[in-house]
């Protein structure tokens, strides 16, 4: 790796890491959802510093150039992130469903109780 390329990669990876940590610090990103972003930032840093690991990995998976391996890793990271988002959305959907259902049931049961009270009072007076 060329020195300029190395410096640029280190700066970008560090910026990503700092950005994620700052977002968590400002409570704009939940800790529960930041781990994958931190993993990506750390992985890019490791790849830049230990570039020979990438070459070894390329040899293991049979890719001719390191760029292909990097592309595959990036693609896999994006897929993982999408999966995580889907998990989060599914969990939220379940929670919203439960919330809506409970609200509707409580509202109806309150009305049932009110109707019962009203009819009870009517019986008493009538």
């Amino acid at each position: 790796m060329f020195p300029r390329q190395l410096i640029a990669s280190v700066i970008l990876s560090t910026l990503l890491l700092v950005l994620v940590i700052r977002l968590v610090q400002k409570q704009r990103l939940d800790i529960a959802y930041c781990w994958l972003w931190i993993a990506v930032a750390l992985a890019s840093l490791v790849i830049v510093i230990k570039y020979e690991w990438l070459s070894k990995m390329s040899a293991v998976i049979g890719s001719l150039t390191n760029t292909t391996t990097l592309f595959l890793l990036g693609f896999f990271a994006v897929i993982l992130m999408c999966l995580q988002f889907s998990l989060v959305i599914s969990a939220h959907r379940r929670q919203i469903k439960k919330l809506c259902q409970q609200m509707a049931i409580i509202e109806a049961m309150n009305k049932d109780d009110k109707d019962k009270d009203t009819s009870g009072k009517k019986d008493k007076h009538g």
Partner: protein
Amino acid sequence: MKSISGIHNKLCLDANLYQRRTQRIVLLKGPLVISRMFTVQKKSAIIQAVKFPDSLQYRYAGIMKDIANILVLIPCHNEQDRISNVIREVRKALPSADVVVVDDCSSDDSARVASQEGARILSLCSNLGYGAALETGYLYARKKGYEIVLQMDGDGQHQADQLQFILEPLSSGTADITIGSRYLADTGKISTTLTRRLGHKIFSAIVLILSGLHISDPTSGFQGLNRSALALFSSGIFPCDFPDSDIILMAKLSGLRIKEVPAKMKERSGGESMHSGFMPLYYGVKMLLSIFIVLLNSHIWRSWRKQNIEGPRLSN
């Protein structure tokens, strides 16, 4: 607590005993019989029946209808023009049953119209889908301790006078779930699209192969459930969108008895079907995947069966 079929014999005797007396005596005796046999409160059903004397029959079936704790569940989404008629028909067919309309966040006046007709409304603040609307009704029914839930669509396709056929196997204790089938009813030519008919055939065949159960109309929402089925369906496993063949298979694997009965159905008089546009394609793929997941989770249904069906039977 005794089962519905246990009450059946006792009520037959009581019905014969009081058949010659006046209607009032039957009604007064009703709560006493009921309070002896049930642990839950059923008197209100009888008191409600007094308000509708025309519907009372001295035959067992009539008394059973009036005393059993029945809830008619109607999920609806934008059905303001049809819902009032549906509720009126239900009231005519089963005067003592409670009617609950689950309004799946309609953008029209469905909830208000249904409320004016005297139905209890379960208003969902977000559009959750047909399955989730049904599940809300099941949860409500369980909380209120209903014995039987009869469900029908709010678009007027299902005829309330057919509810008695759905109810009968449940009240006699011969089934846990009844499904009304348009194909078994003697109505001549049934006007459904080719895609839908093909879908029915395919999923009917899949259910038959996987469970040995022949269901001619697996997509029918005209159903009845007893407490066991209600317990299964309100345990958090009910799908949000299309509860059809997957649910039938799940119920069968969980040891519930499913019976299909003939039920006449009408054409939709308006509104938009949830099976329009590209939905049938999505439905097919989703249902196949859902059936696959149900099969993967066989161990869950087996353990549910052991806990809720076989366990109580052995202890009895």
